[in-house]
């Protein structure tokens, strides 16, 4: 792939020679073998090494292109399989029918065209004067590859009359062939016109303009790399011929018209997005994006965009596309004055395009960063680690017991934590956002088992239904639990990343003993996570769901000493766990470093740091060991001082001088 695109760049004259060579090689095979065997190669060459092209692509755009072509190998598998099929299905649309009417000579549905100017080509030394190569070249050039109706052009008959090559083609291909008139083939400018039509001077009629634009797009599209190369449009020979850039009015209208023609070539936006992932607008003397802004509407899902070597001076020059191209992965802005004027611009550009990986060929985000923060945009509330304000492990114990019990024994759980004043209800959010990392088709959600008692107040507005969908008391709650599908939650310890559990002290919780009429302190516990939904046998996983569950717990008189006051569950489509990953990694790591647990990791419950330090000091005094060995010794003895002394006595003989230094 890379070497293929390399060749024409390093040796701009190579394509003609290569084509000629191939023509000789495939000469016996005829049209088919040429199409099947060499199409890819020709397309890869196309546009880049065009002999007639006045300006070679700038270095920056080359880099983008080469990257794209490398990436194209990936996408190429989709396209190369289908490019020759789906994308290359084509019929030259409306412009042809108009020209067809003017076509004078018809032979059984075929139209004759005369081709001149080809004799002086570098292929003239071929046995047939280059005719067979020329025919193949014309078929390729005239074939449409851009659009939903891409199609091969076929030249049915041909004969040489002096300096003229007369070819016969189906009427619908006439327009496509006339359009390539003036192209350079093997060093010679080839002219193609209708027999008897005389020398036609193209004026700017709508149909002609449309045909020209279509030709421009065809010529500048590379199906292999999915690149639409719109660089240096002002130098384009076809467009110059139409005098498009001589008047201000046509200059303004040109690009929107080009985009309209492009859109017209595709049946669906999906086909369009699949066919074009990269656009180069390099070398267009753009001072801002006013003239080209419609690109973002026509190709909103572009991955690669080359704006190099224009006259973009500052960030505001790019403002039109600030909130566009959310899929943009690679942007090239080199060779613009903005580089000197605003050295800080890359930081801003990164904020604009959350999926940007490369800016001017420099990596600005890794693949992982893009995936983990695909949707984050610099908010004043960065995602942090859980805020879990527990006391005496009450909230933690509750969560551990609760979810294990919910999966394994719901009747026991309802007796354990719920009393006649506890209440439970659940709501289904059927429209919730889904896992952003999910690819492919979205699974049906199937809420049947939940919906009949869902208490989503956005959907249920009748008071009796709202009342009956709230379950109060152990029995009602137990029955309601039983009506929900069986579940399997991830393990709290080994799959902690799939959970987000927060808690804080909540005052004003009702006191069942009645001793505190102003209410007592309890906890608000908020749990976000996921579970596997199981079939009735409890073995087969039928669905993966995400949930949010909010508890208010307070002191209770039951066996656990804790009662659930409120239990509210929201069930929603699986939304992944990446939202729980903290953004400010550095900051959180710092917080963990100051935690005392890190300094003295193996202290048993009930032993404070102060007491431990005293024990270490005492052991040092009695044994003469240094701090580290004394600490290690006590750790080994489980912070039992007497055992520590015994340990010391048993290993004393083996200790080297470093233990006492």
């Amino acid at each position, binding site marked *: 792939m890379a070497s293929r695109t390399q060749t024409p760049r390093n040796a701009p004259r190579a394509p003609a020679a290569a084509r000629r060579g191939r023509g000789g090689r495939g000469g016996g095979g005829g049209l088919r073998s040429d199409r099947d065997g060499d199409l890819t190669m020709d397309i890869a060459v196309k546009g880049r090494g065009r002999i007639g092209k006045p300006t070679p692509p700038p270095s920056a755009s080359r880099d983008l292109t080469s990257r794209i072509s490398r990436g194209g190998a990936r996408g190429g598998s989709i396209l190369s399989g289908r490019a020759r099929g789906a994308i290359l299905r084509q019929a030259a649309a409306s412009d042809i029918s108009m020209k067809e009417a003017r076509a004078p000579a018809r032979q059984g549905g075929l139209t004759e065209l005369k081709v001149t100017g080809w004799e002086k080509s570098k292929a003239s030394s071929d046995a047939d004067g280059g005719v067979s190569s020329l025919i193949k070249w014309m078929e390729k050039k005239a074939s449409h590859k851009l659009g939903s109706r891409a199609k091969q052009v076929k030249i049915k008959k041909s004969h040489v009359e002096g300096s003229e090559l007369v070819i016969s083609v189906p009427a619908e291909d006439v327009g496509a062939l006339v359009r390539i008139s003036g192209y350079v083939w093997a060093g010679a400018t080839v002219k193609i016109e209708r027999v008897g039509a005389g020398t036609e001077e193209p004026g700017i009629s709508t149909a002609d303009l449309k045909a020209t634009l279509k030709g421009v797009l065809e010529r500048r599209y590379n199906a292999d790399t999915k690149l639409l190369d719109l660089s240096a449009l002002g130098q384009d020979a076809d467009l110059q011929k139409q005098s498009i850039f001589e008047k201000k009015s046509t200059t303004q209208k040109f690009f929107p018209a080009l985009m309209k023609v492009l859109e017209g070539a595709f049946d669906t936006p999906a086909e369009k997005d699949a066919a074009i992932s990269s656009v180069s607008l390099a070398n267009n003397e753009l001072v801002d994006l006013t003239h080209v802004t419609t690109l973002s509407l026509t190709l909103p899902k572009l991955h690669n965009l080359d704006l190099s070597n224009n006259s973009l001076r500052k960030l505001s020059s790019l403002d039109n596309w600030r909130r566009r191209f959310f899929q943009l992965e690679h942007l090239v802005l080199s060779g613009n004055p903005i580089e000197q004027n605003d050295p800080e611009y890359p930081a801003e550009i990164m904020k604009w395009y959350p999926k940007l990986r490369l800016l001017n060929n420099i990596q600005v985000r890794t693949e992982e960063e893009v995936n983990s923060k695909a949707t984050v945009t610099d908010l004043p509330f960065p995602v942090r680690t859980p805020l879990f304000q527990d006391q005496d492990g009450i909230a933690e114990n509750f969560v551990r017991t609760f979810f294990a019990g919910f999966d394994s024994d719901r009747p026991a759980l309802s007796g354990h934590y719920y009393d006649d004043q506890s209440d439970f209800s659940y709501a289904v959010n059927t429209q919730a956002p889904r896992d952003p990392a999910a690819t492919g088709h979205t699974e049906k959600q199937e809420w049947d088992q939940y919906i009949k008692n869902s208490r989503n107040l956005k959907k249920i507005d009748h008071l009796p239904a*709202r009342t009956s969908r709230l379950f109060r008391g152990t029995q009602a709650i137990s029955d309601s639990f039983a009506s929900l599908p069986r579940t399997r939650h991830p393990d709290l310890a080994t799959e902690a990343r799939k959970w987000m559990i927060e808690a804080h002290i909540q005052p004003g919780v009702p006191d069942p003993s009645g001793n505190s009429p102003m209410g007592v302190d309890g906890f608000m516990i908020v749990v976000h996570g996921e579970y596997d939904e199981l079939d009735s046998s409890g073995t087969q996983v039928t669905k993966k769901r995400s949930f949010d569950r909010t508890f208010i717990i307070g002191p209770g008189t039951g066996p656990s000493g804790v009662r659930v006051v409120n239990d509210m569950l929201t069930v929603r489509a699986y939304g992944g766990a990446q*939202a729980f990953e903290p953004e400010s990694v550095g900051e959180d790591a710092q917080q963990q470093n100051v935690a005392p647990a890190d300094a003295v990791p193996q202290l048993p419950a009930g032993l404070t740091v102060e007491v431990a330090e005293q024990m270490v000091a005492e052991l040092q005094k009695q044994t003469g060991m240094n701090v580290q060995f004394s600490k290690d010794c006590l750790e080994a003895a489980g912070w039992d001082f007497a055992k520590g002394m015994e340990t010391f006595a048993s290993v004393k003989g083996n200790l080297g001088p470093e233990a006492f230094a």
Partner: protein
Amino acid sequence: MGTLTETDRTRVSTTAAESFVNDFYTSLNGSRGQIASFYVPSNDPSTGRVLPHISFNGEQLQDANVLQDRFQKQMPWTHFEPQSVNVHVLNPSVNPIDSSKVSKRELEQNMSFTVQVSGYVRLVERRDGPMRGFSDNFVLVPNQEEVGGRGTGKQGEGRKWLIQSQNLRFVV
């Protein structure tokens, strides 16, 4: 004099939750200067407890003014869309009152609620902006001087319920 049936509780709590949710997210989206007015006034820090408790994505905010300030000065355009709302009565009798001596209306205004919201928030711009799923949880208390509120005023023109606790998280 007055007693509240189960239906009364549901009526009062669901009506309160719906109008609260509607007003609160409207304020986050469009009238950010009002945000602080949804919360109970900050309590005396010497009690060792910070109220209102406001937690956004794991960060506990000092008070409602900090939240409002961040929304006004740093938060881009947002559209919070609550897709699911549910409410329970947390405490049916926040302040000790003799139910035989007060009106039904006073009893109704003496409850606290737990509100659970699930929805999405569109960030930065309409339609094409990035979207996150969120879960938001509140404890609402009556706007009474006894619970730290300023009261609803003589004509009852103020907010009837204020946020004592909030826990918001992006969950998708």
